Every structure is written in C-alpha cells, then in structure tokens.
C-alpha cells in the first residue's frame, strides 16, 4: 500500500562526486513489494521546490526497517536533499510503481543487469534478491567517468561486475554495449535501468531476449492521476500509452515506444 511517511534519515554519505547515499527508516519499508519500486520525496517543507522527486529504492534492510537510496545532487531539489543531516526527517510517499520481476528468472539461471549512471541503484536490491534465490547475476555498469563510479565493490560481492566509463578512466572505455557485445555467455533474462539512449541500445542489442527495462519521466503526482508521465506504447500493445509512475517504471522489453 502507498503511504505518506515522515521518514528519519539514519545516515547520509557522499559516495562519489555529487553522488550521495542516504538511509531512511520508517514504516513505509514494510510496504515494499519488489526491487525497482521508487519513493517520491519532498526535499523540503517549503513550497519553493514544490514537486516531489522520484528516487529508486536501492536497497532494503527489513530488520532495521531501513531503505537506502543513492542519488545524484544535480538540480536544486537533490542538492537540497544532500544538505540534510542524520536525524532530519523527510516527507516520503511510497512505495510507488511496479518493480523488476524477480520471479522471471529461475534459480540456477543467469541474469544480466545493465545499469547506467543513476539508473544503477535499483539494480543493487534486484541483484541481492536474485542472488539470494540462486540466480547468477552479471552486472554491466556504465558511468561517465571514474569520479562518479559507486557501489563497484558491493556489486562485485554479488557477482561478476563490469565497470564501463565513457572517458575510459575506469574499467572498460565506452558504453555498456561495448561490454555487452563481447559478452558470450548465455543468460535467461536481462534487466536494465538508465538513460533513454542506453535503454534503447540495450533493447536493440538484445532483441528477442526476455528483458525488463525501467523508465524515467518527469512526474507530477507519482501515483497515476495526473497524466504527466505517460509514454506511448509500441504498435500492437493493448493500451495506447502507459504511465511510468503507476504502470511502471519497469516494463517488459518491447512495450514502451522508446
């Protein structure tokens, strides 16, 4: 169920250049149903920055009733968020949307998880859940440059991890597809989250494979009421459009017209 929760910040760390990891505790944690769901955060109680910001849940710790989010302080809202301190409270709406289907990959099978930039975070909880059920996870994580790479160690602990940077300062130089092209192992499912051009490239390369992609759109309500976040669907779909916030953000490959 979607709830509005005043969550308490239990930690805030800078992971890389402008990349922050924040842990939040509150009863919302008990409502999460799948990796890839997101929360909608009010970055301050002032009306100046009026809209909530959608941020993916990167990791769930049920024992501590805690979630982790990883975000880039880019515009005004996320910069404001990065100034919050441990002990501060934030107004959070969530969990929102439908996440990645863990059940689509069986134990013993291989899944390939492809992330780009701030699309990487939700793949972490996904990988944790897949690995826990016995799926072999391979991670291909693309970043602009060395100084914005995060969670390399964390992903490596879960499975084979390829880091790609556009400028070649860390790992393979190029795009996620540079690694994917050379990757020859069989896999049963791919899961991806990142910028549109990356999702497009991934979908093209893995045409015909079972895959799930997580999309981004500017949002108003975050719950399906305002029609801000719609995407057109591909021909032959049963609906002419989907809403990223409530129908997604994750969709099977081939559904959303990229």
């Amino acid at each position, binding site marked *: 169920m979607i709830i509005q929760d005043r969550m308490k910040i239990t930690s805030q760390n800078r992971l890389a250049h402008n990349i922050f990891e924040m842990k939040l505790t509150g009863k919302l944690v008990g409502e999460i149903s799948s990796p890839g769901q997101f929360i909608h955060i009010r970055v301050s109680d002032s009306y100046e920055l009026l809209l909530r910001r959608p941020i993916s849940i990167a990791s769930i710790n049920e024992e501590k009733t805690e979630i982790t989010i990883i975000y880039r302080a880019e515009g005004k809202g996320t910069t404001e968020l990065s100034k919050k301190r441990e002990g501060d409270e934030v107004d959070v709406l969530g969990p929102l949307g439908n996440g990645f289907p863990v059940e689509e990959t069986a134990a013993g099978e291989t899944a390939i998880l492809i992330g780009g930039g701030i699309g990487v975070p939700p793949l972490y909880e996904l990988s944790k859940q897949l690995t826990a059920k016995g799926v072999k996870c391979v991670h291909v994580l693309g970043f602009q440059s060395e100084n914005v790479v995060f969670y390399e160690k964390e992903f490596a602990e879960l499975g084979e991890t390829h880091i790609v940077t556009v400028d070649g300062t860390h790992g393979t130089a190029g795009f996620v597809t540079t690694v994917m092209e050379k990757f020859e192992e069989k896999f049963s499912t791919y899961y991806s989250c990142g910028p549109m051009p990356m999702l497009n490239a991934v979908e093209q390369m893995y045409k015909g494979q079972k895959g799930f992609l997580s999309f981004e759109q500017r949002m108003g*309500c975050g719950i399906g009421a305002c029609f801000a976040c719609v995407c057109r669907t591909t021909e032959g779909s049963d609906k002419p459009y989907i809403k990223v916030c409530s129908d997604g953000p994750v969709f099977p490959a081939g559904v959303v017209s990229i």
Partner: protein
Amino acid sequence: MNRLSVDLPGLQLKNPIMPASGCFGFGQEYGNLYDLSLLGAIMIKATTLEMRLGNPTPRVAETSSGMLNAIGLQNPGLKSVMENELPWLEKFDVPIIANVAGTETSDYVEVARVISSAPNVNALELNISCPNVKEGGITFGTDPIVAEKLTAAVKAVSKVPVYVKLSPNVTNVSEIARAVEAGGADGITMINTLLGMRLDEKTGRPVIANLTGGLSGPAIKPVAIKMVYEVSQAVRIPIIGMGGITETSDVIDFLSAGASAVAVGTANFVNPFICPTIIKELPAKLDELGINHISELIGRSHRL
C-alpha cells in the same frame, strides 16, 4: 448542524473542498488512499468527445512555488468516461462535477449533453480556459461574445447546472464573467492556469515539449485571490475558487475573497492527503476565527 455545508446550484456540499480538474484523474488513484466520500465534491479530468493522447513529454516542470503543466487534455474520451470512470465513482457519496472540453462548439455540446445525463454527475464545468491545446480551450475563454454563446449552447442541452471555468490570461476577467453569466451560467470556477514557460539553462530549450505550459500552485494564489475578489463583485452567480490552495488558511482566504467553495489542484501532488486534511482542520480554524458556520466567511473582504 454541519458547520461546513455549502449549497450551490446542483451541489449540496457537505464541505466546500474538492479536488480540481486534472489533478485527481477520475478519482481511482486517490480512492486507493482515502475514502472519497469525505470530499465536498470531485471535479473529474477534462472529458472530450474522442479519446485524446495529449501532448508529448515532458509535460511538467517545476518553477518557484509553482509548476507548469501541458498535459494536453489527455483522457479516454466520452464513451469510456461514461462506461468506466463515472460508474466506478457511483459507490461514493460525493457529487461529481464533470469538466467538459472540446475543439468546437458542437463537441462541447455533445459531451455536455451526454455526460450531464450520468446519474452521479451533478454539475458541469465548462473548460474554456485550457492553455495547453492548440484549438479550443482558451480560445473560447478570451472573447466574451464567444464565451457567452458557448455557455448558452451548453446550457440548452445540459440536464444539470453549468459552471464555466475562467482563464486568468485576459485583460478583463470580469467582462468574461459577466458574459458567461449572461449566457446562463449557474456558477463560475476560477482560475485556470496562467501561461508560463521554463527554459533549460544548459540548452536554452523549453523544458516542456509543448513549449509553454500552465502555471499553477502557491505562486499564482495572489492572482487568483485578486480575480475572485473582483469577479465575485461583478456577477451574482457563485464562484468555486482555486489557484494555489495548499493549506487550510488558503481556503479561508478564497472564501473571504468571495468564493463559495474551493478546489485544490497542484497541492494533491505535494500531499495526496491534502483534501481530507483540510476538511479535518477546518472546524478548528472556524473556532479560531470565532465563526460558527463557514458560509459567514464568504465575501468577508468586501464588507470591510
């Protein structure tokens, strides 16, 4: 006695708080969060004759204490609203105000004729002020003669009272208000969004795919209050006021300015529970102000 009840043409409201059109879909999403019967009324999303897919995205952008939107009247079309959306709402004890949009007089009239016959539609809200579609919408709302004629044409077919939604993007809003009153409007709803634009700092390109959008939220409240204050003294029909309502004290302001009830738009995105929260807080606010019944506030600013 219900201290919050307000009676308006076609609408016996248990309280004067309703979500504004376009900010609440057809109620289902918020219906998952709270009991819609708590609301004074619901203004549903604009309905057009045919399904509309709206504008390209991005459709929203944030501005200081406000937001821009250019949804472009996306809706499933009259038939689907009649068959799916309105019946779903029947289980709630809440009057529905159907927002009617179109491109030509004939679509407005046809949507009005059909939708006003739905059992739970208690009033129409004629949208002559949508800034986000190329044809129709705002073009009807800026010319008093056109506005009056459209109002009369819709009144002629509607089975329920007709409220006309005014645009703030005009030199003289009272002139338009008087025109729709002359056309037979039973009430006025105001204001729709102000025209606005946001550019991306890096590229210089408009953030919203439609280039311009409608500005809503707290930023526009002073404009809305001024217009409600003015129009409520220019016409005799009641006003449902809106524009930037975000907290209970804003409701007091709109009623004081001359509105008989209010609608909450953008604030639903900020706090999805805002309507029931305001409804809950109102009685204590009346106590604070030493007022017995909410209707005593209406038009208070004129009397001083």
